[in-house]
């Protein structure tokens, strides 16, 4: 107990030292263009902060100033209490992971060598590098058989995974990601986003991710900084607060017209709201089902199989016409196109309910077993 607590404390201390603080940072180019203007921003340690905004808003410049790929014109950036401009740029970069849009893999090196780049620069012993590469390949979900291949032999999604593995190789406390999923197709993108969230839940790194996609920002960000065109921050907040209380018209416009729907996506079903519903086993008789229905006063019944999984919906009209002695499972049931998981978000729930027979949807647990139903009426009450 005490060691666990102590470990947690040291972990917290370590994390705090990796908060990234922008103190009135400006970036002007020699031609007079202002990329970033008097930026004050604290990116909390151990969180995933998303920088989002229209193109040319300075979000990428902001990211690149952290590892000194861009030099700041004025102000200062601190990681913990260290000023980045006072650290050696090369050393600094070896301790900050960097993932870019096009994986940026070295085409002449194998996947293993690409991943090993930073450990090699840090002069780790060979055996440690080999072990670390194997570990990373598994961590980012790559097939171990790929490590002897070359980048051009991999798909875009696989290359992005290698890019992530390379960035994580020396276990840096900070990870910078510059539009990491912009160049892959939507299905792969969703997959990679989910993986990143899964990894981050385990790693708790300080991640700064740049995107122009507000959906991606909402999905990934613990906090989101929305940049406006003038290189200033319009709002810096959690996704929930951005949706609930947008700071100005720009933020409202940027989030888009479906703000209410996006809010729903951030809320989960409340277990209290799940109604036990009226359900019968497939092996029950039509007569039993009629009795149950009449007692409950419902318009239909959820039919379950032996494993307690929902089979389909049976409405009153069909029950009434059926032979009272036949079994339920011999009747024609209306199946659901979706299953609602108990931890599903309200947006998916609403979406599923729109097409649900009988205006109710069964809610299931991890094993697909019936927990109860949620009805359109209940959900609408929750929304208003």
């Amino acid at each position, binding site marked *: 107990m005490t060691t666990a607590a102590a470990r947690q404390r040291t972990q917290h201390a370590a994390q705090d030292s990796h908060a990234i603080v922008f103190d009135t940072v400006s970036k002007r180019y020699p031609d007079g263009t202002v990329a970033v203007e008097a930026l004050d921003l604290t990116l909390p340690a151990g969180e995933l902060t998303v920088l989002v905004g229209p193109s040319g808003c300075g979000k990428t410049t902001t990211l690149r100033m952290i*590892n000194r*790929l861009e030099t700041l014109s004025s102000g200062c950036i601190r990681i913990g209490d260290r000023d980045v401009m006072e650290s050696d740029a*090369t*050393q*600094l*970069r*070896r*301790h900050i992971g*960097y993932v*870019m*849009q*096009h994986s*940026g*893999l*070295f*085409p*002449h*090196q*194998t996947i293993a060598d690409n991943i090993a*780049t*930073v450990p090699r*620069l840090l002069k780790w012993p060979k055996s440690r590098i080999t072990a670390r590469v194997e570990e990373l390949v598994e961590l980012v979900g790559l097939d171990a058989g790929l490590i002897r291949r*070359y*980048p*051009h032999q991999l798909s875009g999604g696989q290359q992005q995974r290698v890019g992530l593995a*390379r960035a994580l190789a020396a276990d840096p406390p900070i990870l910078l990601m510059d539009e990491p999923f912009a160049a892959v197709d939507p299905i792969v993108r969703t997959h990679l986003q989910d993986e990143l969230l899964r990894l981050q839940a385990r790693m708790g790194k300080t991640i700064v991710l740049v995107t122009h996609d507000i959906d991606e920002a909402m999905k990934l960000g613990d906090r989101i900084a929305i940049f406006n065109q003038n290189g200033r921050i319009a709002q810096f907040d959690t996704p929930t607060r951005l949706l609930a209380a947008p700071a100005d018209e720009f933020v409202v416009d940027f989030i888009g017209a479906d703000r209410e729907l996006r809010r729903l996506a951030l809320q989960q079903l409340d277990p209290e709201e799940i109604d036990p519903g009226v359900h019968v086993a497939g092996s029950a008789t039509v007569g039993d089902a009629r009795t149950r229905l009449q007692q409950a006063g419902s318009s239909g019944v959820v039919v379950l199989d032996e494993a307690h999984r929902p089979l389909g919906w049976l409405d009153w009209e069909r029950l009434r016409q059926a032979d009272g002695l036949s079994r339920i499972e011999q009747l024609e049931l209306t199946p659901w196109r979706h299953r609602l998981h108990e931890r599903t978000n309200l947006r998916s729930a609403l979406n599923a309910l729109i097409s649900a027979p009988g205006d109710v949807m069964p809610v299931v647990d991890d094993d697909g077993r019936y927990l109860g139903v949620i009805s359109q009426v209940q959900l609408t009450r929750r929304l208003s």
Partner: protein
Amino acid sequence: MNDSLPALLQGLIGWLADPAHWQGSNGVLERGLEHIFYMMVSTLIGAAIALPIGIGLGHSGRGGLLAINLTNIGRAVPSFGVIIFVFLLVGYGVIPVIVALVALAIPPMVTNSFVGMRGVDPAIRQAATAVGMTPWQRLLQVELPIAMPLIMAGVRTSAVQVMSTATLAAYVGLGGLGRYLIDGLAVRDLVQVLVGAVLVAILAVATELLFAGLQRLVTARGLRHD
């Protein structure tokens, strides 16, 4: 003297079949080695000058246009003119020949190494910086290996050109396979002229093949898209 083609070919084979023509200071082996020596020395000196320039300019991305234009002007200067000019300056010896051949070897190597270095994807260059490579590490571990196929293509072009042009050495009284051409022309011994031409051509083709193999050898496996 019979100048018909079959007779010339017969003469050629007869000439080459005579062991006496292969030995001694005017033998094929000696002359061939001299020829190869001119080529090797000139290409090496040329590479020592051209590659740092092309690679350096390509790495920094500055002054490339100037360098390429200068070398293109260099290409327009006739090698024979250079030989005579340097011959007049320093007199008899191997230097005028080497200077002319080096001048010939430089342009393809500068251009190719510059283009090869510039051809490295900026995203890859940036990635090298972002992972914490020093400029030297970036050059040696990333840019050079990726540019290597093109750089070697430049060396190959230069070597082949120098190999054929080394024939000119004989004009200023030096050796090499050009001797057969010059001497043969002087006495209108067409068989000997043909011997010189054929041997130079064979050496040039051999150089081409050798350097093509070398180019393949220095191309990292990940860059071979076959």
